[in-house]
């Protein structure tokens, strides 16, 4: 086939009974409006010839290459949608971070007196808001530690075990070191957020929450 035959605007014989016009009016060639040339339908997925295919497949033949092409294209569309969702998730984190940075510092609040907490004793308290549960442990006479009670794995409440030197998460057997709050066993990967404490006279005040990645 010559390249000029591919041009749909090629000149045709203008006479009314020209075979190239095939009943059309105007001067466009008839094959311009004809059915597009179909690609050959290849073998079915099982590899057998058409005559050996089941009746339903012979009655309703599927254009397998076209089917595969459309499936891949639609899967790519879905992946692009997922990609957009990940982008939206990143923007959501940016907004949360911005919101957190604008939040004013929470005021210190007295939670207990040193005399109320024996060595090895624990105290549950909330800080900075009433829904943020924390736990304080008096490790020795002059060492107090306090952490958020939410496990960094799936937010279960951790239980302090001062005699073993750990905080235990009963949901998935996570363990945190009592003195540092670092994860030492189980699924948690991040340390527990540390509550910064201040001793004023004999009173204990939490003053800040320290989030950590390592």
């Amino acid at each position, binding site marked *: 086939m010559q390249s000029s035959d591919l041009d749909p605007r090629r000149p045709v014989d203008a006479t009314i009974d020209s075979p190239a016009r095939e009943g059309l009016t105007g001067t466009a060639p008839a094959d311009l409006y004809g059915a597009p040339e179909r690609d050959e339908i290849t073998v079915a997925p099982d590899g057998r010839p058409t005559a050996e295919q089941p009746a339903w497949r012979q009655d309703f033949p599927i254009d397998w290459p076209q089917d595969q*092409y459309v499936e891949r294209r639609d899967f790519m569309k879905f992946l692009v949608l997922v990609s957009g969702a990940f982008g939206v998730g990143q923007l959501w984190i940016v907004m949360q971070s911005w919101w957190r940075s604008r939040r004013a510092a929470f005021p210190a609040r007295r939670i207990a007196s040193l005399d109320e907490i024996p060595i090895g004793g624990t105290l549950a308290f909330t800080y900075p808001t009433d829904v943020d549960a924390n736990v304080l442990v008096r490790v020795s006479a002059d060492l107090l530690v306090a952490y958020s009670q939410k496990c960094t794995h799936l937010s279960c409440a951790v239980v302090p075990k001062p005699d073993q030197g750990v905080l235990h998460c009963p949901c998935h057997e996570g363990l945190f070191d009592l003195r540092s709050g670092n994860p030492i066993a189980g699924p948690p990967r991040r340390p527990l957020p540390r509550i910064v404490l201040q001793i004023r006279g004999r009173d204990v005040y939490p003053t800040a929450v320290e989030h950590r*990645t390592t």
Partner: protein
Amino acid sequence: MRPTRPFTRDQRTTIVYGMLAFVLIVVVLQLWLLTATMNAYLGGDDSVIRPAAIVSLLCFALNLGLLGHLYRLERPRA
């Protein structure tokens, strides 16, 4: 002048396979980026959040561009 011919379906299938592999790798990269950024955010480290968001959005723009290119391939040429 050499006439422009659209890609055949087999050629387009090969192209879509290549694009699909590329997009898949980029999406996995975005997933890793999202989990790493979330971990940093929960750990109080805000320094990586904005660069990660920019990179993730660039990845999305790249994927979107590839999808648009695929649709342009399907369009019959003038």
